[in-house]
C-alpha cells in the first residue's frame, strides 16, 4: 500500500504569482528510500511541507489536488496529528529548536504524545547517541554550531520513530563523516523497521547509494521518477542541472571512450571501483 500518494497536487503560496508545485502525482510505497533532487527553488521543500500538512495549514495559500499520507488526508487533519506519522527535519535547523536544552528539545515530541518517563529516557538517549550529541545534551540549542543544531533536529525526529522520516538537505550543515554515520543509522531503520525515508539532496555523491526511488523536480513539476541508476545515467537528468555523482559520471565518460564496465550504472565509489578492478585485473 502506498504510504504517500498525491494526485495532481498544485500549490500556490499566499500572494505568489505562480504555483510552487505544479500537478505533482507521486506514489511512495511503505519502506522505500526516496531521494528528491532538482535545482535550487524548484519546489522540493514545498513538496515536503505538504507531507505533514504545514502546507496548507500553516502556510495557507491554495492547494489543489489530492494527498494522503499514512492513510490520512492531510487536508482534513491538523499538522500536530501528522507528527506521530511523519517527522520532518527542516532545511534550516535553527527554525526547529526552541527548548532550553538540547535534551529537552529531543524529548519534546515524546512528551507530547505521553510516552512513559522510563521509555522516553531510553529513546532520547538512543537518539542523542546516534547523532553524536549525547555529551553536549545539557547545552542550549542556541549556543552550538550549525552542524550541532542540525543533529539536534535529526535526533528529535529519530526519537519519535515515525513511519515516515523526511530530511530536507541535511548534509548542508553536517560534516561529511557525521553525515555518513547518520545516513547509515537512517538506512538501518529503513531496512530493518521498514521506516519510509524521503531525503531531499543536491549532494548525490553522499546519498544516491541509499535510494531505490529517485524523483527529479524542475520548476515545481516532477520531471523524472523511478530507478536511480536509470535516471542518473540519462542525459536529461544532467541537462536539468542535477549534480551526478562523480563515480557515475566517470563510468559514463569511460563508456563513451569504449571502455565498457558492465550494464549496471554505479552509484558509489565502491561499485565503480569493483567494476574497474574486475575489468582491469591481470589475466594470464
Amino acid at each position: 500500500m502506498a504510504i504517500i500518494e498525491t494526485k495532481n497536487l498544485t500549490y500556490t503560496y499566499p500572494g505568489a504569482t505562480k504555483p510552487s508545485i505544479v500537478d505533482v502525482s507521486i506514489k511512495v510505497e511503505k519502506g522505500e528510500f526516496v531521494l528528491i533532487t532538482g535545482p535550487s527553488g524548484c519546489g522540493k521543500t514545498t513538496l515536503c511541507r505538504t507531507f505533514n500538512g504545514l502546507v496548507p495549514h500553516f502556510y495557507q495559500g491554495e492547494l489543489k489536488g489530492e494527498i494522503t499520507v499514512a492513510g490520512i488526508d492531510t487536508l482534513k487533519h491538523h499538522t500536530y496529528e501528522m507528527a506521530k506519522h511523519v517527522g520532518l527535519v527542516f532545511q534550516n535547523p535553527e527554525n526547529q529548536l526552541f527548548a532550553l536544552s538540547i535534551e529537552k528539545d529531543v524529548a519534546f515530541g515524546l512528551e507530547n504524545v505521553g510516552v512513559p518517563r522510563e521509555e522516553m529516557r531510553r529513546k532520547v538517549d538512543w537518539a542523542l547517541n546516534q547523532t553524536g550529541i549525547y555529551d553536549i545534551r545539557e547545552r542550549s540549542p542556541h549556543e552550538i554550531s550549525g552542524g550541532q543544531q542540525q543533529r539536534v533536529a535529526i535526533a528529535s525526529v529519530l526519537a519519535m520513530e515515525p513511519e515516515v522520516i523526511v530530511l530536507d538537505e541535511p548534509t548542508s550543515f553536517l560534516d561529511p563523516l557525521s553525515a555518513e554515520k547518520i545516513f547509515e543509522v537512517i538506512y538501518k531503520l529503513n531496512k530493518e523497521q521498514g521506516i519510509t525515508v524521503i531525503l531531499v539532496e543536491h549532494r548525490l555523491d553522499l546519498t544516491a547509494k541509499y535510494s531505490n526511488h529517485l524523483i527529479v523536480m524542475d520548476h515545481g513539476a516532477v520531471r523524472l521518477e523511478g530507478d536511480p541508476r536509470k535516471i542518473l545515467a540519462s542525459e536529461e537528468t544532467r541537462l536539468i542541472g542535477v549534480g551526478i555523482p562523480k563515480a557515475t559520471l566517470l563510468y559514463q565518460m569511460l563508456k563513451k571512450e569504449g571502455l565498457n564496465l558492465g550494464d549496471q550504472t554505479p552509484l558509489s565509489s565502491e561499485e565503480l571501483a569493483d567494476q574497474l578492478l574486475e575489468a582491469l585485473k591481470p589475466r594470464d
Partner: protein
Amino acid sequence: MIEAQDIRYAYANKVEALKGVTLTIKDGEFVAIMGQNGAGKSTLVKHFNGLLKPSKGKVLVDGVETTKSSVAALARNVGFVFQNPDHQLFSETVEEEIAFALKNFGFKPEVIEKRVTWALNLLSLTQYRKTSPFLLSGGERKRVALASVLAWDPSTLILDEPTIGQDHEQKEKLRQFIMQMQTQKKTVVIVTHDVEFVAECNPRVILMKEGKIVADGEGKEILTDPALLELSSIVLPQIAQVFTKLAPLGFPKDVIDIYEAKAAILKQAREKGMLK
C-alpha cells in the same frame, strides 16, 4: 593579509571554541577551512572581520589589530557571509537587501543600480528583485546573502558554507566567480563541508579539530590523505575513494580530478589491449 597569532576564544557559556590558532592568509590566496561540526571554523572566521575579538592572542587584518579598528571600518574591506543566511537578511525586498551596504558605503545611485543588477544576474535572482527574501527557498536566501556582499566588491571575502542549498549550476558559477577573484589578487576564505566542491576548486585547505588547526596544505595533498581526513571527520572525494581502491592495479592514490582519472584508466586499458 590576515594574521592570527595564537588566538583563543571562549563563548559566554565558557565553551572554549578556539584553543590557540596561528595562521597567515596572504593577499590573493584562496583558502578552504574544513573539519568536524563544532571544530571552531565559524568562530575562527568571525575573527577575520572583527565580529568576534579573541580572548587571548591577536588578529591583524592588513597589519591592524582588530581590537583597534571598528567593525564598520573592517567591513569596508572584508565581506562576510554567514553560515545561516537568516542571521544576515533583514530588508523588505531582495533589491534593497543588496543595495543596503552599497548605500552605507556612499556609492552613487547609478553605481548602486549597476552593481545591484550585476549581482542579481550573477546569482540568478533577477526574477526575485522585488520579492521579500523571507519568501524565498533556502538556497535562494543563501544567494541573496552572497549577492549583498559580492555587490560591493570587497578585497577580502569570507564565505561560511557558500554552497548550502545550491545546485550543480549555481556551484559552478560560484567556482568561476572565485577563480575570477583570484585573477584580481583578492583573498577568498570559505568554510565548507562540501568535499566535492573543494576537490573541484583545489584551494589551500586548512583542517580544524576541537579548536585547533590539525593540517594546512595544498588541497590535493590533504584531500587524498585518508588518515588526516578521518581525524577531521571528512571523507575522501569520490574520485579519490575510487583510486584508493585501485591501488593494487598500480594506479596513483592522489587523484581527485575526474579528467585525470579518466586519462589514467584509459591509458591502462589501452596498455592491456582492451581498447583500440
